[in-house]
């Protein structure tokens, strides 16, 4: 299989097929990336396409020393940050946002909720590791952090998440967790999760 980097170089030289191959490889993961971080499926779809649009516009800036994967998620992170800023500036539109997981399982909801309680920076590291399967050094490069910092924050976030998920593991039917402030929240499976804090 041709590597992502070779495809990107071919695309830099003008190969449309190389771009289509890259699109096929990364469209799904990027959609998942946006879907997990934003409320709207539609926006996730748009932003995934927008990531590739940015790639086309800045093809010349890509340097072979960076992995294509890191390059793409770097663009995606910037797009997410811009989208969140946009949402904060237009709170009225939030109610119009389509719920992301209509048929999500109870456990998936619980996981989302637990993730929402994590520190923003730690949550991003954890999600990049678990869902996008990025290595420590790739995360460090993306977030401009030292690798050791990434490792320690990842460990902290996993331990914190274990703490948030443990009560749910013990109980069945109701979902209970201890919030960051120490207050106890009781939620049923029917309860729609609050908007992601981040």
């Amino acid at each position, binding site marked *: 299989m041709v590597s992502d980097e070779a495809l990107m170089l071919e695309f830099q030289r003008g190969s449309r097929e190389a*771009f289509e191959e890259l699109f*096929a490889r990364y*469209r*799904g993961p990027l959609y998942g990336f946006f879907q997990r971080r934003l409320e709207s499926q539609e926006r996730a*779809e748009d932003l995934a396409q927008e990531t590739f649009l940015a790639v086309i516009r800045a093809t010349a800036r890509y340097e072979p020393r960076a992995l294509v994967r890191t390059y793409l998620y770097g663009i995606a992170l910037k797009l997410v940050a811009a989208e969140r800023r946009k949402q904060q500036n237009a709170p009225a539109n939030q109610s119009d946002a389509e719920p992301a997981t209509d*048929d999500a399982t109870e456990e998936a909801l619980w996981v989302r909720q637990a993730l929402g309680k994590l520190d923003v920076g730690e949550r991003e590291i954890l999600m990049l590791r*678990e869902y996008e399967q990025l*290595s420590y050094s790739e995360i460090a490069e993306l977030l*401009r952090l030292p690798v050791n910092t990434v490792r320690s924050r990842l460990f902290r976030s996993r*331990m914190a998440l274990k703490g948030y998920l443990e009560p749910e593991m013990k109980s069945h039917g109701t979902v209970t967790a201890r919030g960051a402030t120490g207050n106890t929240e009781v939620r049923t499976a029917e309860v729609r999760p609050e908007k992601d804090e981040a």
Partner: protein
Amino acid sequence: MSMSKHPIAEEELMAYLDGELSLDRAATAAEHLEKCRECQNVAGDLQSVSRRLMVWQVEPSEDSRIAPSVAAALEQRGQAEEKPATRGGLSWRKVFQMPRLPRWVWSSGIAVASLAMLLFMFGVLFFSTNHSPMQYVNMDLAHKKMATQRAALPPLPESEAASTIVTKSGNNVEDGRAGGGGEHERGSSAVPAGPMIVRTAGLTLTTKEFDKARTGLEEILKRHGGYVGQLNVSAPSGSGRTLNATLRVPADQLDATMAELKKLGRVDVESQSGEEVTQQYVDLVARLANARNSEQRLTEILRHRTGELSDVLAVEVEIERVRGEIEQMEAERKNLAHQVDFATLSATLTEEYENQLQAVPVSTFTRIRNAAVDGYSTVTESVVSLVLFLFSYGPVLLLWGGLLFFSLRIIWRRLRKNAKNT
């Protein structure tokens, strides 16, 4: 979990499970994990968290096609690739086949250029405030340049070369081709029998008895039939008097005059030079003879032939013009002959100055006051100089300093980032 009990930290255990631990540490971790119950529990917790997270899966999007906007951008890019010259012209990087350089390389370049510029400016400022080193360098360079130019020139023919001899204190100078202009009998149309040389000489003397030396100079000049062309005497306070004189001496008397003048004091500099003007003189004489012949013929015409008044007047005008030329050339010839007959001697007489003893010592109060006044003026001058310096060089220093600062900051950040990553 203490390090004394466990050879690997919890974070390392996690990195091992993620496949992010170095090989040697990974071996240690694997070995320890087999035996340690506590670490197995931690590993189980970590794996459990990862498994739980995987529960949240995102439904794949139904539409996996390239969006029209992306397709349009792709199309546009394809067209631009085909016609690179039509959009934005030729890229200089492509023309010179230069690779894309990282930002820190540009920053280093700018930093070096800024530093060089600043150093150059400081150098210029330093040398402009301390004139002497720069001047010496310039003079030295100028001398070298002149020497090179002289060496590059072809040697002058013997008849055209001007003999120049310059010696320092006391060395006798003998010009082998001395003019002896006075020996030539030069009539109005005579051609000189020997070479005609315009001689010039320079003499700088230092004497303790200035007045006596001056009188001696005048006597010597009188004895040898010379005269003073120009004479200046200056007597500045705090230094000795100086006499600058341009003397005209009969060419055949020049050597004798100089020999006597040298006895008036210590010779600092002595120089002699001669310029042969035979060719110039012969040309002038020939042109003069021709002009006289023309004048004669015109006079004959006017005397013997008759014609219309306008013709007569035209001949008169022509005669007038030729006579004007003759007079001018005659004056030139006489001047040249005079220059040959009388050598030019530039003499400088300097008095050896002796400091006078201060009869009344300056009082301490006066000295303190003078020092205070000097100090005040020095402070004022330095403040004014600083302000002037800031006004004249401030903007340019700010520009290059800023460039240097920002480029060094980029390099510094880059180095720090590299150090952290390693």
